[in-house]
């Protein structure tokens, strides 16, 4: 490995390290799974240990979307818009059976898995999953981010799309 390649690799490691320890989620709860997500930020489970306690009310400041709950077809455009409003780099956790696959709602009005609309990084099944499930999902996501190779994501992202 050349010096430049080694420098780029270690720079990427530093970037990944920074990214994975400050995954700020966007406040986005859809159904009962959202209550488990809220509990995960309580002192008992303390999501802050993983750097993810800052639930952002604006998607512009968020890195992670936890789709917690049933996605109805009427909600689907809003969900997609919020995802598009998040700046790169961004990740998605499908939290709960409904977000993963539609769950028990095999009906005309429920999206059968949020991965039909937006790309999902980690699936956390359960109905609803316990807060530990979310913590495990975040740890899995952190491992995934730590292993991201250089060049997979842009270092800087600009809102008008011309990423540097």
């Amino acid at each position, binding site marked *: 490995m050349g010096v430049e390649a080694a420098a780029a690799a270690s720079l990427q490691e530093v970037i990944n390290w920074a990214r994975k320890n400050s995954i700020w989620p966007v406040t986005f709860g859809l159904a009962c799974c959202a209550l488990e997500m809220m509990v995960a930020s309580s002192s008992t489970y303390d999501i802050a240990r993983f750097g993810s306690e800052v639930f952002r009310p604006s998607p512009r400041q968020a890195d992670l979307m936890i789709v917690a709950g049933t996605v109805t077809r009427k909600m*689907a455009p809003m969900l997609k818009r919020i995802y598009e409003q998040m700046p790169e780099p961004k990740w998605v956790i499908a939290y709960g059976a409904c977000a993963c696959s539609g769950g028990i709602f095999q*009906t005309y009005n429920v999206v059968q898995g949020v991965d*039909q609309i937006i790309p999902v990084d980690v699936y956390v099944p359960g109905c609803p999953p316990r807060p530990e499930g979310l913590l495990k999902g975040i740890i899995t996501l952190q491992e995934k981010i730590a292993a991201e190779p250089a060049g997979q994501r842009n270092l800087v992202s600009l809102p008008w799309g011309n990423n540097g």
Partner: protein
Amino acid sequence: MAKCMAGDLLKETFPEAVRDIEEFRRETSITVDADHVREVMTFLKENEKLCYDLLLDLAGVDFDNRSPRFMIAYLLHSTKFNNKLRIKTTVAEGASLDTVSDIWLAADWMEREVYDMLGIIFNNHPNLKRILLPEDFIGHPLRKDFPVKGRDFDQPLQVCLEEER
């Protein structure tokens, strides 16, 4: 709870409109001809002995094997006399019914819901469009012949935002 006199009064005033009066466990249900719904409802609200000033619920039912196919049930309450009354009327498939949303404003959204779910048209409704389902939805899901999973259940969902069009 005062005794419900609506049945007798309605029979006197609109002999041609009242089809049937049932009483079960002190609940009165009156079946009314669909063409006379508005007159009957106005009477029920404005008559001083009845004064049904509150529309609690308005619901549609699909009886797939009956003719006429649909039934609309109005659940009325009198805050003055503290009693309840159920008015039923039947609508055939493709037929329409007069709105009561100018008599009770509460009927506005309830009629929209019935339209949304069963596809029954209410004449003279101020804003008859879908209320629960997305506006581009095809079909009326509470009809018995509508598949529970929807028509395109096995197809991937396409979401196209306004700004992407």
